[in-house]
């Protein structure tokens, strides 16, 4: 009876002509100068066909410049790119694609409103003028069957989970017949389980000789588990690398940082305190307006850090907005130090509530105003207990100078626009403002997203020392490692509700991962 099924002309996936399996690439003495600034200095690295190569380096070390040179976004000042041993001569990204080089960006480049199938078809170089969806879907299903993982084809992409989107990005590259793939921090939006699944499949494709991969990452765990070789960049120079099996995490970290020492993690001292933040039965609409955020009960005591883990888009942003007063609630009470809290400016000042939202440049700064002005946002109209009408520029400047020095914010002047600062320094400046003076409650969201080791270590130490002096800290983060490092208690948020809680010291990562994915 199976004969009938077999006799039916099965749709078979035929690779595009450009597909030739894994492609090896090599940069030879690649140098890239922007004016007087040397972003890339004589970098030679080799990615052998079928290998999984990790590219490590702090922010600003030149990793993205290197991959942009490979993909043809930039033209290297000097040096060569070899593709399978021949001169690559990549003129632009389109040319790179035609030569089998592909890149998966840190931020998704899928079109949210289009379905997975539409995204795949439109990404082809030869989109037919009239698309016959019946036959296209048949071909796509045949293609999916040949792949180690699959995604729903007819669902709009904005409804897919982050992990599925990332898989689709990789599938898209394979669908297009790419033999060399650059992955730019591919797991930053995934749960640990999803990350393992995606990278595991990518590794299998490498082993099968379908693909070579150059992966930019900050996570050593991923390097050890999936990569076979690595290279390290520091200040535009290639400072080391080799076989992953021959080097340890501390060697890699030392190569990345050179002489710079990260701040010592602040030790956690025993504290016990009264509840500062209490939420009871709080409900609100979520961002789409279709779902609901429902926090049955949440309390944060003085001198503790409560971490809320969860995959982005499960209500953390909305919870932050509820606490900052940006999102109206339909039910429930929020209390700080026992008195009702509606996040007005007067209340937040009286009850000493401070915030460090994610992407502070956009959510906590006026980007074009100066560093000094941005630092003054909490205090510019305060005159002791009263308010003032005329600003006090002298006092503002002194406060800014003091905080900039104290928090080691690197800026050419406190009069430069804050948008000119690097991500880590914006974060430092905002944290300086928010931690200035007495703070009873600090609400933080993704404080270290996109920052390098040194900045991360320092910001975490600041948060920890605030906790040690009795501040109640509510920390929302998509980085589970960060939650586990900082928190006393861990909560997991999934689909708008807190679904799991545990003591951080006794946390079991697989269990937390399952709750994050909503599979428990």
């Amino acid at each position: 009876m199976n004969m009938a099924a077999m006799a039916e002309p099965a749709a078979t996936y035929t690779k595009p002509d450009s597909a030739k399996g894994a492609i090896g690439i090599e940069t030879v003495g690649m140098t890239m100068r922007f004016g007087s600034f040397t972003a890339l200095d004589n970098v030679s690295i080799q990615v052998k066909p079928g290998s999984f190569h990790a590219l490590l380096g702090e922010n600003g070390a030149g990793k993205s410049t290197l991959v942009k040179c490979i993909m043809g976004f930039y033209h290297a000042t000097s040096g060569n790119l070899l593709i399978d041993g021949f001169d690559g001569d990549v003129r632009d990204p389109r040319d790179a694609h035609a030569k089998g080089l592909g890149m998966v960006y840190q931020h998704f480049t899928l079109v949210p409103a289009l379905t997975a199938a539409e995204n795949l078809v439109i990404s082809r170089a030869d989109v037919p003028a009239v698309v016959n969806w019946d036959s296209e879907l048949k071909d796509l299903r045949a293609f999916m069957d040949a792949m180690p993982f699959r995604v729903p084809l007819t669902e709009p992409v904005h409804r897919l989970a982050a992990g599925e989107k990332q898989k689709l990005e990789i599938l898209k590259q394979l669908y297009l017949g790419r033999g060399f793939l650059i992955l730019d921090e591919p797991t930053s939006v995934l749960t640990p389980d999803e990350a393992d699944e995606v990278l595991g499949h990518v590794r299998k494709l490498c082993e099968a000789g379908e693909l070579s991969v150059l992966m930019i990452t900050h996570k050593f765990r991923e390097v050890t588990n999936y990569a076979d070789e690595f290279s390290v960049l520091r200040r535009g120079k290639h400072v080391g690398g080799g076989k992953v099996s021959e080097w340890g995490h501390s060697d890699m970290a030392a190569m990345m940082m050179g002489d710079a020492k990260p701040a010592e993690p602040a030790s956690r001292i025993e504290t016990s305190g009264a509840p500062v933040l209490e939420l009871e039965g709080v409900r609100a609409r979520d961002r789409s307006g279709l779902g609901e955020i429902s926090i049955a009960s949440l309390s944060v005591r003085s001198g503790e850090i409560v971490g809320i883990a969860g995959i982005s888009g499960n209500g953390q942003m909305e919870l932050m907005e509820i606490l900052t007063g940006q999102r109206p609630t339909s039910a429930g009470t929020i209390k700080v130090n026992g008195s009702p809290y509606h996040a007005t400016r007067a209340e937040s000042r009286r009850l000493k509530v401070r915030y460090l939202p994610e992407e502070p440049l956009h959510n906590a700064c006026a980007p074009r105003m100066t560093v000094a002005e941005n630092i003054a946002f909490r205090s510019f109209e305060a005159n002791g207990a009263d308010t003032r009408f005329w600003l006090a520029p002298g006092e503002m400047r002194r406060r800014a100078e003091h905080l900039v020095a104290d928090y080691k914010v690197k800026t050419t002047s406190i009069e430069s626009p804050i948008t000119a600062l690097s991500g880590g320094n914006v974060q430092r400046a905002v944290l300086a403002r928010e931690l200035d003076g007495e703070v009873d409650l600090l609400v933080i969201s993704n404080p270290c997203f996109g920052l390098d080791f040194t900045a991360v270590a320092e910001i975490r130490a600041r948060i920890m020392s605030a906790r040690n002096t009795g501040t109640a800290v509510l920390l929302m983060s998509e980085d589970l490692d960060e939650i586990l490092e900082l928190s006393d208690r861990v909560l997991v948020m999934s689909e708008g509700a807190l679904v799991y809680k545990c003591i951080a010291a006794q946390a079991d990562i697989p269990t937390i991962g399952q709750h994050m994915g909503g599979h428990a």
Partner: protein
Amino acid sequence: MNGDIGLWAVPIAMLGGAIRVSTPFLFVSLGEVITERSGRINLGLEGTLVFGAMAGYALAYMTGSAWIGVLAAALAGAVFGLVHGLLCSLPKVNDIAIGIALMLLGTGLAFFFGKPFIQPVAPDLPAINLGWWSDLPQVQAALRVNVLFIFGAVLAVGLAWMLKRTRIGLTLRVVGDSSDAARALGIQPARVRILATAFGGALAGIGGAYLSLFYPGSWNEGISSGQGLIAVALVIFARWSPINCFFAALLFGAAGALGPALQSVGVTTGYYLFYAAPFVLTLAVLILSSSKSGALTGAPRELSITK
């Protein structure tokens, strides 16, 4: 039959009115759907509509052919759309501000060039009598449907098909939803948007030609009562779907026909109030479709009003 059908005259007159009045709404909104799907908003369509009405009437009068008038209106509209598209492609130019400027420019130019054409009579566009089966003169009058209306209905279906099943449609949706994704795919968003705006302008021009060449069927300075602007709101109401635009246009057309329909059965109190029905409906639609939290579902993500 003496044609005395009492109050039934009101719904029948509204149906007829809906079909007559909706055509400009239909064309302007279909054009705007395409423009907005590419991520631009063109508020200048009111000016394009009025200029199209003038150009269409003038050319129809000079050549004696209403169809040449329609063609001229479409061309004039495309030029306006092209200007909007090109200007908005310059860095740091806001599409809404340009739209308002072009709206004023379009009406101003139309009044300037249209002065000599207020008196002369141009040929009308042909209508098809779909009411032949009825004896009632009211029904026959209501179902005298203009060719452009039928063309618009077919166009709505065609555009929906195009958005779903053609390369052009997919490209348009990619550009409207994410400039970055479009660039990563090697599409030039600016070019797609310029063409989409030009197409939208052409359709708005045809909508204008309908005004001056069929209903009301003459050129004067008060020819448009804000249809070009209402149609932009209508696109939001229709959730950027060409098929929905067709029904939304009929609804707005019916609201516009309420005043004349009531007048035809002798209701004269609150006459001006009923004429305001489309504007009240516009406000109601915008309020009802607004949302305090969250983005509009189905809105192209590159649209400046939804960002």
